[in-house]
């Protein structure tokens, strides 16, 4: 290992340079660990999911063989919305943008022949997150892996759905209760599981600025803290397991400043406002994904360069985990070859560039420190606003901002401003409004998902429905409804029982909608 800690010329390197507070020291601006990537590289986590569970299982195994150390699951749109593959609205969407999961049987196929005690699995799901977690746990325990050994992350961040991604099902308050139930459950029974990945990624993709991404995301994090504390948990009992998920966009130094500011704000708020004393509660750990929205359909190979630079910003910003986008994503779902190139990009950064030898190598740069301070200052203005409209509660402020369409309006305004700048030529996008010679995407091989996938999945669902014990299904749904009606009861046990009975995601969600209602957004264009 020692030889990696010198430059190519053989100049020996210390783990860190500069004055304190150093990496690993409060307020963790420079990183959450003292020697950062020397002791442990980031997790190279590649998002995958398409077609049926069996199709995605094949991709998972391929990724593990090529050196990926964590799995990340993309679910298809019906699953994300808590509907079954045979729901009328699912037409044309089954298995298209992710994998279709209707029952625990699909979850079993998805992770077939993968040692769930040995990998960490991230599941990108929000509205029905508690149900999918229950399925994962049931599959693991049927395979002999106890829930306490399971490592992974559930996105389970419903607030940003109302603000940006729009994959909500129930109204905000009962949805946050579900999130809080998962936090309570994992705090008690799944010590290696991250119950919420508070996600700015989608806020940014919806068109926000870096400052808005940071501020809205941390505000959502504070909201979950307030909700879980109100449910009776000690902040240090769950805060260490909250993780974050940020976007890494094209403005290199602003992104690095954003990551550094995120750590400092979180540490200060957790200590000073929420009274956390456990050091692990103060350390903001985050996953990064490069900016899908920055990828262009024009000259898609150019996206490899964008992804590399954005990934580098994430690493220089101290990320714990990284997904690099595939260069063909502006055209279609990533092909296997493009996904491999994206993973190789991370490996080049990790093993060839030397940026991992020194923690926070940009710390102390006048510009980097200034932009970090400035991003922080602007984020604090947003917190003040939310605190004010929430009457001294960030949770209430976030509810109010959702209800009134404030978040959506702010994001829509930023998105439109960006588009106008590109359209006027004020902002250059290579291959889009400048350097357009050679624009042609027809040479790129694209991944296609066929209509047969949908038919296969619906047939499979019909088989499960016909073979299961329908009385057990009805009974399990009755218990879900009863538990949902009492806000003090944790819903996880009844959800686990329901998925064991092979009740579908859609059936459980409809039962919950009967109690919680459905959400219709306040449109802000």
């Amino acid at each position, binding site marked *: 290992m020692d030889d990696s800690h010198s430059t190519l010329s053989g100049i020996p390197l210390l783990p860190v340079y500069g004055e304190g507070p150093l990496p690993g020291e409060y307020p963790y601006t420079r990183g959450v660990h003292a020697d950062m990537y020397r002791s442990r590289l980031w997790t190279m986590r590649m998002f995958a999911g398409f077609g049926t569970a069996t199709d995605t299982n094949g991709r998972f195994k391929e990724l593990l063989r090529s050196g990926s150390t964590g799995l990340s699951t993309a679910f298809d749109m019906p699953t994300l919305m808590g509907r079954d593959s045979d729901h009328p609205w699912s037409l044309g969407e089954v298995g298209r943008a992710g994998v279709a999961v209707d029952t625990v049987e699909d979850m079993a196929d998805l992770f077939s022949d993968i040692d769930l005690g040995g990998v960490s699995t991230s599941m990108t799901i929000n509205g029905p997150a508690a149900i999918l977690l229950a399925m994962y746990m049931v599959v693991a325990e049927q395979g002999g892996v106890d829930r306490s050994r399971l490592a992974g992350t559930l996105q389970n961040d419903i607030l940003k759905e109302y603000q940006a991604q729009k994959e909500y099902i129930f*109204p905000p308050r009962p949805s946050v209760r579900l999130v809080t139930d998962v936090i309570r459950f994992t705090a008690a029974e799944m010590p290696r599981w991250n119950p919420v990945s508070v996600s700015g990624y989608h806020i940014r993709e919806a068109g926000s600025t870096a400052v808005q991404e940071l501020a809205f995301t941390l505000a959502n994090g504070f909201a979950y803290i307030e909700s879980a504390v109100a449910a009776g948990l000690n902040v240090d009992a769950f805060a260490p397991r909250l993780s974050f998920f940020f976007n890494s966009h094209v403005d290199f130094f602003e992104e690095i400043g954003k990551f550094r500011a995120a750590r400092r704000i979180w540490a200060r708020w957790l200590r000073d406002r929420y009274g956390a004393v456990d050091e692990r509660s103060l350390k903001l750990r985050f996953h990064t994904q490069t900016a899908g929205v920055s990828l262009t359909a024009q000259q898609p190979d150019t996206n490899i360069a964008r992804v590399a630079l954005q990934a580098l910003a994430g690493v220089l910003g101290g990320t714990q985990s990284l997904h690099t986008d595939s260069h063909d994503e502006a055209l279609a779902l990533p092909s296997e070859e493009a996904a491999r190139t994206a993973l190789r990009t991370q490996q080049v950064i990790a093993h060839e560039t030397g940026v991992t030898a020194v923690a926070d190598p940009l710390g102390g740069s006048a510009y980097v420190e200034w932009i970090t301070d400035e991003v922080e200052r602007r984020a604090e203005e947003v917190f003040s606003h939310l605190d004010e409209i929430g009457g001294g509660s960030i949770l209430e402020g976030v509810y109010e901002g959702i209800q*009134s*369409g404030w978040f959506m309006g702010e994001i829509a305004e930023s998105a439109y401003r960006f588009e106008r700048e590109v359209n006027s030529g004020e902002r250059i996008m290579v291959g889009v409004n400048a350097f357009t010679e050679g624009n042609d995407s027809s040479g790129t091989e694209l991944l296609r998902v066929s209509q047969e996938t949908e038919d296969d999945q619906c047939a499979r669902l019909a088989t499960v429905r016909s073979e299961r014990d329908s009385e057990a299904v009805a009974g399990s749904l009755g218990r879900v409804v009863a538990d949902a009606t009492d806000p003090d009861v944790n819903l996880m046990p009844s959800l686990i029982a329901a998925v064991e009975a092979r009740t579908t995601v859609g059936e459980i969600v409809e039962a919950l909608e009967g109690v919680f*209602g459905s959400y*219709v*957004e*306040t*449109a802000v*264009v």
Partner: protein
Amino acid sequence: MGPTEPASLPVVAQLAEASRLGDRSATARLLSLVERGGDLADEVASATHSHTGEAHVVGITGAPGSGKSTITNSLTTLLAEAGKRPAVLAVDPSSPLTGGAILGDRVRMNDASGVGVFIRSMATRGHAGGLALAVPGAIRVLDAAGFNPVVIETVGVGQVEVDITDAADTTIVVVAPGWGDAVQANKAGLLEVADLFVVNKADRPGATDVSRDLELMLDLSTVPGRVGTERPSITMTTATEGEGIGELATAVAGHLELLSQGVELDRRRETRRIAEVRAHLDYLLGGAAEEVLATERLEPVQAFESPMMVARRLARRLAGQLLG
């Protein structure tokens, strides 16, 4: 296609007939012709006028964010399910700079659309003759097509070219805690125009305060509602949950009954007719004045003639033209 295809008079008559027989495309085309204004709009008025007078015209107004669209959605859904044939005219402002508009009211009217409520969005600008002409014309088209009630939703008194009270038999003013509450409603002149109040978002903190403030202001008001001594009722709703909407429907029907008992309904409709005549007159005179102005060479050197004197001279010419 709307902006490209000129209609002719026989087409208007055919459309009016089809619209009466329930052809919704025909109704929609007539509404487009009304929005365009001019001779074709007059033709539409002639073709529909004799079939009107049945519809109860209900105006819903209130501050942005108070929940007008959601209330309109719930109320018309309930009425449609009860066997009525409601139509909605949702009026939104146009951009003063470009004349374009984003008409977003349908977003919250999926339920109503699903049960067959006819919904039409209308922008405030970009219609020859202005909204003061377009709204009564549109109501007439919907009335003649057999829709009842016709619900008009607008951003509020004073904010658009037409006051909803000029157009409606019954005016509902929506207030909500934090979003156009009672004090703001009073300032905006909404208290005087309300036949019925709705306090929406009744599940939120402050809703009872809003209701109490309203009661208090009505106690102090010298204008206790639009009908003689009748004090406007206050209905509490949580429109997103459909709560209080049944009560509101009852209040709306009750108000119509009240109007119909005496001469008030006829008086209001007569006032409405006068308002519409006035709008047409404004339009005609305004147009003629523009024409006279365009033909007049205003000599800057004739300093002995003040602007007022010029106007009088032109007005005499205008009168001569109009009468001649």
